[in-house]
């Protein structure tokens, strides 16, 4: 009797599972179609194209590893752009995170004004990606710009154009990047709010000063958030493009030729699309390598509360 029941049930159950699968694909359908058409297929094509010569006019021809060989042996600008990007990432990101943490620490207190300050400090991050802000930045750091005027007002004679001087141009881009520290700041702020007050009270009872409290309590408990911010910011930093294009357009003397800008020029100005794809895969390998490095190193410096036994 029960066996019969089960036998009768199981096709019904199977049908239910089947409709469940149908419904599941119905829900993820739009995402799945776009993923296949605009991510997965291009991903595969990109890999194939990186071994080809392709200029969109004639059919692609297979050239083996020659794009990659040329990148590493015959392309001076490739090395230049890689150097610029590394300098940008390894200066701008630690500074942005440090600044974000510092401001978060300062703002982490009870005050009616804090929400207003939060808005003011976050505003640059909301606007920073726009063309308008890049244009504004160009005239803030030009010869007669805001920075020089301000420096002169406090008695420092400064007459250089920060964006067209080869030693300072990259720094003006780095400063623009640091200026947008708003989102890591907000993430730090929410992390700080989660640290129990009792920790600090106990430390104070034991006579720990503010510095000790910061290094022994705040910083270790924030390491998971620092880790998260570091990964996210690093990926974004390697891909920086529009600011470099609008503010300096790679100049002066390629000092701000970031990798993504050079890749764009190869692909869409010279129409060397296979070469551009090869560059993109090198970029992805680099990003993957550093992401893995951060993940691997995390066990040494990221602190999780459940480690306490």
């Amino acid at each position, binding site marked *: 009797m029960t066996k019969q029941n089960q036998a009768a049930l199981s096709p019904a159950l199977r049908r239910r599972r089947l409709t469940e699968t149908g419904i599941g694909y119905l829900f993820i359908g739009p995402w799945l179609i776009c993923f296949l058409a605009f991510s997965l297929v291009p991903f595969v094509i990109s890999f194939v194209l990186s071994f080809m010569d392709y200029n969109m006019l004639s059919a692609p021809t297979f050239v083996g590893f020659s794009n990659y060989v040329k990148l590493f042996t015959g392309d001076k600008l490739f090395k230049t752009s890689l150097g610029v990007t590394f300098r940008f990432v390894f200066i701008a990101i630690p500074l942005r995170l440090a600044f974000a943490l510092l401001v978060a620490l300062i703002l982490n207190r009870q005050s009616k004004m804090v929400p207003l300050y939060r808005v003011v400090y976050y505003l640059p991050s909301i606007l920073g990606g726009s063309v308008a802000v890049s244009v504004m930045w160009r005239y803030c750091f030009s010869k007669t710009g805001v920075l020089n005027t301000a420096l002169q*007002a406090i008695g420092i004679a400064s007459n250089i154009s920060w964006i067209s001087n080869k030693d300072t141009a990259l720094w003006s881009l780095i400063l623009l990047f640091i200026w947008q520290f708003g989102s890591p700041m907000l993430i730090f702020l929410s992390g700080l709010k989660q640290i129990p007050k009792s920790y600090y009270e106990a430390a104070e009872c034991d006579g720990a000063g503010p510095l000790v409290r910061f290094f022994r309590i705040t910083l270790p408990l924030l390491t998971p958030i620092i880790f998260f911010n570091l990964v996210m910011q690093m990926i974004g930093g390697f891909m920086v493009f529009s600011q470099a294009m609008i503010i300096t357009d790679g100049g002066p003397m390629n000092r701000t030729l970031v990798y993504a800008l050079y890749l764009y020029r190869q692909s869409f100005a010279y129409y060397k699309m296979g070469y551009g794809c090869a560059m993109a895969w090198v970029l992805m390998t680099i990003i993957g390598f550093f992401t893995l490095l951060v993940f691997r190193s995390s066990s040494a410096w990221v602190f999780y509360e459940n480690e306490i036994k």
Partner: protein
Amino acid sequence: MRQKKAVNTVCFHLFVGFLGFIMIYPLIWMVFSSFKESSLVLSTVGQLFPSKWCTDNYVNGWSGFGGTTFTTFFKNSFIVTILTVIGNVIASAMAAYGFSRVKFKGRGFWFVCMMITMMVPSQVLVVPQYVIFHSLGWVDTFLPLIVPEWGGRAFFIFMMMQFIAGIPQELDEAAEIDGCGKIHMFSTIVVPLIVPSMATSAIFSFYWKWDDFMGSLLYLNSPKNYTVSIALKLFCDPTAVSDYGAMFAMCVVSLLPVIVLFLFTQRYIVEGIAMSGLKA
């Protein structure tokens, strides 16, 4: 003790206020410059307030270039951005629900695929995407900017999944016993409960699309199709620009939609970022 605390508070406000002022000074400077006489913009940098307020810059700037006015550019930007936001939010909410609450074959695999897309740099996809859109005949239309967004974004899907995880499973079971199907459950129970995360997604979707420069640069060729970002780039090109007042005026106008949206919705943004660690 109390005195010391008061001094402390004053120092805090002075320092934070001053730093904040320095941070947004360039923006303030740009706004005031746009009201100066155009010829004085770059010669009176040290003077914040215009000696004579004039709105000519806005009139001159709005006339655009090549016979196309900023009315067209703004219209284009709004079309692209609004269609993107709608598609982004709907598709993301659907996918988030599918991944969280429907048990189907291949769910785990597709979820991993989705998470990986967050790590792949857009540069890897940009050339093949261009080739695909070119062969579809979509270049110089809005389609390459809008259609891919109708699949949602991994960031938003992931964020909404966090929200859905907070909805008790029992609610699903109770609804199911009452004979409520998954689709009905999604539209009547889940959507109303995840409105905050949908709002956050919509806001970020708006920002990212409004500011998107790369897409417009690649796919829009004729001035009548330009969005604000690419039009502004060409309008402000250092080799072409001569009317600095108009340039700043148009920069200010282009930021207005974003600033207005930000001021009205900053609560959602702050909470959204704190919850999911969205980059922006």
